[in-house]
């Protein structure tokens, strides 16, 4: 048994809270553990922030479609946008052991997605760019 949820919002920073609230609301009906809900909110927030700040850069802001499916042991997330394609795997990973003065300010968003989510995939086509990932959990 699974249930699918979807929300479409403008690609603007004001939408971030709406995406997070939507995730929390949907998960609340399925007794998803709090730490899993937080990690989903974090990963979706980071992905959407990248789309808003980089994907639609130089373009009129379009939309972001967040869809996810809750299954008994996993949550499948799909985020689609219609801006510039961006390959997440091409981004450099931050150096977590660097001294304070050497730590860079960027690169952490994607890193957090990779640290908290599984089965991360990215597809770009003329119909849009789609980032998918899965979060497994113990009910």
């Amino acid at each position, binding site marked *: 048994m699974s249930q699918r949820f979807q929300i479409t919002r403008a690609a603007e920073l004001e939408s971030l*809270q709406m995406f*997070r609230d939507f995730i929390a609301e949907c998960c609340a009906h399925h007794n998803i553990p709090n730490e899993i809900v*937080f*990690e989903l909110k974090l990963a979706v927030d980071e992905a959407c922030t990248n789309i808003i700040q980089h994907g639609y850069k130089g373009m009129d802001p379009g939309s972001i479609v967040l869809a996810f499916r809750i299954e008994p042991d996993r949550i499948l997330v799909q985020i689609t946008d219609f801006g510039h394609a961006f390959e997440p795997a091409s981004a450099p990973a931050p150096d977590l052991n660097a001294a304070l003065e050497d730590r860079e300010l960027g690169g952490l*968003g994607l890193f957090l997605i990779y640290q908290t989510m599984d089965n991360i995939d990215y597809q770009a086509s003329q119909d849009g760019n789609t980032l998918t990932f899965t979060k497994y959990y113990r009910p």
Partner: protein
Amino acid sequence: MNIQDIQKNGVTVVQFSGSIDALTAPAITEHLGGLISSGQIRLVVDLGGVDFTSSAGLRLLLGAVKDARAGGGDLRLAAVQPDVMKVLKISGFTNILKLFENVDDAVASFG
């Protein structure tokens, strides 16, 4: 996002409440930058009321702690909530920032 400053024993305690994301981070960055540039470099950030942070929060803390330490001060965290603590740990920030269970301990740590 609400921001409030309190002075305690020569330390500026900055209280945030709400969520830190790419929308709310610039106002916090500006606030901390204003304190540091006015010479308030002994800072405690009280995160007791913050239930969410993205990497936008990490970036602003990193920038502010670098500036505070460059001036001979420091920025220390207090009352970090479990979800926010997880983000700090994953990203290695617990190694570069000093964390305290509550504001009083963080203020006292400045001596």
